[in-house]
């Protein structure tokens, strides 16, 4: 069964450093999403992406965040200058549309 994959599984970085989180979507999916889950809290929407454009973004997704699909397969989330409060589990999700989203296993980001 096809699945969404994410790399790395765990990323440790220093405050102020840039990080790039990577996701490989299911091959025939066209809609891509990033969510995050701070430890002990609920899963929050960050951004949705379709046809090489951001469709919607939340208040969390400020100028420090960006997304792209650089090579037609990987879908990446970049945080330019990480803060302590960016520490969270980041989930990629993909969809063919019409609601059902398939989630990857997540990347745990730890900012020191």
């Amino acid at each position, binding site marked *: 069964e096809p699945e969404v994959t994410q790399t790395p599984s765990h990323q440790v970085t220093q405050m102020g450093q840039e990080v790039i989180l990577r996701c490989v979507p299911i091959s025939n999916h066209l809609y891509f*999403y990033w*969510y995050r889950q701070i430890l002990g*809290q*609920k*899963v*929050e929407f960050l951004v949705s992406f379709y046809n090489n454009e951001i469709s*919607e973004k939340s208040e969390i997704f400020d100028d420090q965040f960006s997304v792209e699909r650089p090579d037609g397969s990987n879908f990446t989330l970049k945080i330019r200058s990480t803060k302590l409060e960016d520490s969270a589990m980041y989930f990629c999700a993909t969809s063919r549309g*019409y*609601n059902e989203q398939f*989630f990857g296993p997540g990347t745990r980001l730890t900012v020191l």
Partner: protein
Amino acid sequence: AQSVTQLDSHVSVSEGTPVLLRCNYSSSYSPSLFWYVQHPNKGLQLLLKYTSAATLVKGINGFEAEFKKSETSFHLTKPSAHMSDAAEYFCVVTRANFGNEKLTFGTGTRLTIIP
């Protein structure tokens, strides 16, 4: 706008007894509703979904949920709990039949199974 309220942050049941995890939703649109499960240190797995077809939805591992529009509820049930059901469960709402809509999660219910 849409939101989800999971009425219990923690539920404990004995193995072999029924499970009930409660969820109420609010949505300005016709909703699609989901239950996702997250086992410790794992990703999110879809248990079941309601997308405006049958109101009683069956999912994996013996779980069911019933969509009740009049009560704006989508409670998750299982007749007999198993130790492997211990996990965090999230009720999720989105706008039905809308191609690119974000998911809105509840705060989660931690299910503990007592041997």
